[in-house]
């Protein structure tokens, strides 16, 4: 437990406190998941015999269901989700970089929407920085095309089977992947009324 402003042993006597920082649950959620999540998990288990092998864990947090899928099984799971569970629309792929998670630094997060059932789920796939390959889902949802190019551009995840995996937002000859945590934000110090304001990435950070 730490105070409102996160002080730890600094003698903060302001009286603020009360916000308990809950660390993200790394383990799977326990059944029942609640809402339609149990139904989705049951349907997927029934339609896909390899469920236990392909799904690393199921997390329910803040009313949202996340399935952590092994990258080797992603295409199979995606096809079943689209055809059997009727998740017709993919809302795109997004990357997140966790440098501290050694061996699974790069995460791809896919949000799916079932218009038939009015349901949403999230798939999360993690790949190591040393081997940043995962299958492309353009064959399953054609709209993933630009989204996967953006994740490649920003994080360097290589989507195998993508019809034309090139940079999309940054110039073609750009070096590095800007959204990774080790990529600097840039910026220069600015002088204002005699004092110097450092660039945002070098200002004091409050952890």
């Amino acid at each position, binding site marked *: 437990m730490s105070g409102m402003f996160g002080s730890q042993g600094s003698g903060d006597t*302001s009286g603020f406190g009360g916000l308990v920082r809950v660390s993200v649950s790394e383990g799977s959620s326990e059944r029942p998941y609640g809402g339609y999540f149990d139904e989705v998990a049951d349907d997927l288990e029934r339609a896909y015999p390899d469920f236990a092998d392909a799904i690393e864990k199921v997390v329910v947090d803040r009313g949202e269901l996340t399935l952590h899928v092994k990258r080797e099984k992603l295409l199979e799971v995606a096809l079943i989700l689209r055809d059997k569970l009727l998740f017709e629309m993919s809302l795109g792929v997004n990357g997140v970089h966790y440098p501290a998670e050694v061996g699974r630094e790069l995460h791809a997060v896919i949000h799916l929407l079932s218009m038939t059932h009015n349901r949403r789920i999230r798939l999360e796939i993690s790949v190591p920085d040393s081997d940043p390959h995962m299958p492309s889902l353009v064959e399953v949802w054609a709209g993933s095309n630009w989204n996967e190019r953006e994740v490649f551009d920003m994080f360097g995840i290589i989507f195998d089977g993508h019809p034309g995996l090139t940079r999309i937002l940054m110039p073609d000859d750009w070096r590095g992947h800007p959204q990774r945590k080790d990529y600097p934000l840039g910026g220069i110090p600015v002088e204002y009324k005699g004092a110097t304001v450092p660039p945002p990435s070098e200002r004091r950070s409050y952890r």
Partner: protein
Amino acid sequence: MSTSTDPLIDPYATSRETTEGRVFSVTGGDWDSLVTEIGATKEERVVVNMGPQHPSTHGVLRLVLELEGESVTELRAGIGYLHTGIEKNAEYRSWTQGVTFVTRMDYLAPLFNEAAYCLGVEKLLGITDDVTERASAIRVLMMEFNRISSHMVALGTGALELGALSPMIFCFREREKVLDVFEMISGLRMNMAYIRPGGVAQDLPPNALAKIRETVKELRRDFKDNDKLLIGNTIWMKRTEDVGYLDLAGCTTLGVTGPVLRATGMPWDLRKLQPYSGYENYNFDVVTADTCDVYGRFLIRMSELEQSLRIIEQCVDKLEKLEGQPVMVADKKIAWPSQLALGGDGLGNSLDHIREIMGTSMESLIHHFKLVTEGFRVPAGQIYEAVESPRGEIGVHLVSDGGTRPYRLHFREPSFNNLQSTSAMCEGSLIADVVAAVASIDPVMGGVDR
């Protein structure tokens, strides 16, 4: 045409050595050889770059067209000319400062960016139910006004690009009225950063509701001018009917939402199906068309104007009843401590608040300082929150590591996904129809490139 890169043998770029270094004299290319070269190839294929500097591509969109005569055989869209790194920048700012960044993404619908972001932060904080009814009603009011101003630009510039000048004049006249309302309420006409995590920046000014009622009346009267000009207009119909065809299967696989999806007959509107900010308490219709073409999307936008006015009227009635309710959550550890006030030189710091923190209460000063410089902590986790923007589903994926700044912030921009469908809509059609199709998607490049 010569393709040599060695300047010494390039006939169009002779060079000579001087004391300052090598000096090049660049001359024009030889058009005769270019024409001969084209004539020698069997197929007549011309590749044309339309944009990024082109008046009818809605900003800095670049379309690479492969043409056979007037027909488009292949179309590729090039984007990234307006990439500003907003998502990366927001990782170095506090959660409240993030609003000021995301409002600049889709610059025609800033309040939807703010609403999606703030609803996301509230979901992460677990305070969704603490947002007061008045704050939610003000959000809905502002969003629906914003939908009108955004549709006005979509319709006005869309008509302009197809050669109809008068609708543009009318649309921008109406949009000015909406921007006046924004200015009265938030102090700014665009990029207001008005919706904040926990509520809105400040309450409505006195007499705002009367002014809004007046504006709604004027808008409803003046929208008829556009109706008369375009609906059923023979030239307009010929330019838009059966143009830019995209059916339901195409929309779902390409992730296309908004008016383009509703033009396939699918009544998909998140305000009805996955309501947020109390949309379930308002009466309005989801407008659809079944033509899958540019004309259908145009009709949907025209009808959505009236639906937005209906919602605004209900908001005004509701706000009248909720007079005096706070517009920010009660938790002082999240609510911004400063209050704004209208002074002689415009909207600025409230003198009462400054008097309190500088003259009366040291604790207030500390609280203000800590909250403004450091910000509040958001429990670790990730969420996805979506709202129905004028262009479709705008979703925000927020990841927090428990700190005072977002760990990762990503917007699922409707313009970005919808723009992918340009190829499907345009290949096989005429160049002139490309302009109509792009206008009907209504992409905003600030949102596409972020």
